[in-house]
């Protein structure tokens, strides 16, 4: 397997790029594995990598119905942040940011992490007071949050609408300097390559059609490429978790929605941080190619369709123009959707399930990308030990029956 380096790049450049080897194998599924992970997106691939790297379990397969990273991992807006309100969430999401910070080196794969910060704009003095409370709580939890006044916001984003007599004026904001963006495909591909190098079989075009049970325990999966036995099965399926979990009678508090995003034509660098507005329901950043990457809230009704519907597209674009009238003649190049799994408290559901041998990583809703390293590590720990990682305990399946929600729907100050 080729190790990537500046030297290798130079060598291959001089050799006409003829010596690169595939980043991972295309294996035929074996009859059985110690662990089968369903879902070859970021969470499934990172779980496979950590299983092999940290827990020494290498007889592992990841089965993916399409191609690696082709679902929400390739459809999100690539924002990474840990500005969550509750201590349980702050610990989990900040672990994820810290793992992201070392990921390019760890995987020998450039994920193009750019910690350019994320700004949330307040549109009224009351909203800014609420932000002050949230910033203080997050700082107590060890998250690098700052409260900004309107002048700070103007300095950070000079092209923001400067008018004061508008419906959503700039009244200050909150800022996380360590937040940022990364190349989403590279995260999937980097984990895939590193997992493959450690012996994990990545099996694409392999859709799960059934889950086998014996003696009340999960014993494997039936797929379009034959039956595959498994000591333990992990699900990392985002919006498609419910149909697979229902095969073994596992009820989940998830509702699948389409979350859409779009990009504009490329511009010269003009936006140097991620900007979000809760009041307007829009957020955006500028990619390295110069495109504005824009997103908003969930579509209006439950859906399993990977395309957004028009009323929300209009909401997002009108919100964007309220913040940045200077973008009014900009063209939208592409628009798409992904299927996200929204939980009642906007927090993930992790770890063991009431079904013996079945482990889950779901409920990330609209924020799964930022959580890929931590979510994968939590799933890997559960699959390796059969038990919760210390950090995933508050996110157990049973919290709903115990009424111990981690209610970030209201807490994080981000629309979920």
């Amino acid at each position: 397997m080729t190790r990537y380096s500046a030297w290798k790049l130079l060598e291959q450049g001089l050799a006409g790029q003829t010596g690169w080897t595939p980043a991972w194998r295309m294996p035929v599924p074996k009859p059985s594995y110690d662990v089968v992970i369903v879902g070859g997106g970021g969470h499934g691939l990172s779980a496979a990598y950590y299983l092999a790297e940290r827990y020494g379990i290498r007889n592992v397969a990841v089965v993916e119905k399409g191609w690696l990273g082709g679902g929400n991992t390739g459809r999100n807006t690539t924002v990474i942040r840990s500005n969550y309100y509750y201590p349980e969430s702050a610990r989990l999401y900040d672990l994820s940011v810290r793992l992201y910070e070392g990921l390019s080196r760890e995987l020998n794969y450039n994920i193009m992490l750019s910690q350019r910060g994320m700004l949330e704009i307040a549109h009224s003095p009351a909203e800014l007071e609420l932000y002050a409370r949230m910033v203080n709580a997050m700082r107590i939890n060890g998250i690098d949050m700052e409260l900004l006044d309107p002048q700070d916001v103007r300095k950070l984003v000079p092209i923001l609408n400067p008018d004061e007599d508008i419906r959503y004026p700039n009244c200050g904001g909150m800022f996380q300097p360590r937040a940022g963006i990364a190349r989403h495909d590279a995260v999937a591909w980097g984990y895939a390559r590193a997992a493959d190098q450690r012996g994990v079989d990545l099996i694409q075009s392999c859709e799960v059609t059934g889950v086998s049970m014996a003696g009340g325990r999960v014993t494997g999966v039936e797929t379009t490429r034959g039956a595959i036995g498994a000591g333990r099965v992990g699900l990392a399926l985002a919006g498609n978790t419910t149909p697979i979990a229902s095969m073994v009678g596992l009820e989940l508090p998830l509702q699948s929605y389409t979350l859409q995003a779009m990009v504009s034509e490329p511009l010269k660098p003009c936006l140097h941080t991620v900007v979000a507005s809760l009041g307007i329901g829009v957020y955006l950043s500028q990619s390295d190619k110069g495109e504005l990457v824009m997103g908003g809230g969930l579509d209006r009704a439950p859906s399993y369709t990977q395309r957004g519907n028009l009323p929300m597209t209009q909401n997002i674009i009108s919100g964007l123009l309220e913040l940045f009238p200077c973008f009014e003649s900009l063209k939208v190049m592409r628009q798409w959707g992904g299927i996200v799994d929204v939980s009642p408290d906007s927090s993930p559901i992790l770890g063991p399930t009431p079904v013996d041998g079945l482990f889950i990583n779901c409920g990330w809703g609209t924020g799964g990308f930022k959580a890929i390293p931590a979510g994968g590590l939590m799933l890997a720990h559960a699959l390796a030990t059969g038990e919760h990682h210390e950090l995933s305990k508050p996110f157990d399946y049973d919290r709903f029956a115990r009424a111990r929600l981690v209610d970030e729907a209201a807490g994080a100050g981000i629309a979920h």
Partner: protein
Amino acid sequence: MQRFPCPHCGPRDEIEFHYAADAGKTRPGRQSSPEDWARYRFMRKNTKGTARELWQHAGGCGQWICIERDTVSHAVIGSEALGS
């Protein structure tokens, strides 16, 4: 813009309608277990395919209605007034 059929008003723009919940849930009795309450309060059918859903025609007649809808194609199969 999609049009949804309101059983009271006829076809209207989708933005007049507000999605509420799965149709057909039964509230458990007062002596039910926490698990039964959690199932009622939190668990979702999350149907992939034809789903029966409660909606409100909030931007029109204000009535609560039941809509049968395909969650993959978004096609609306039909709607009816509650209690019909």
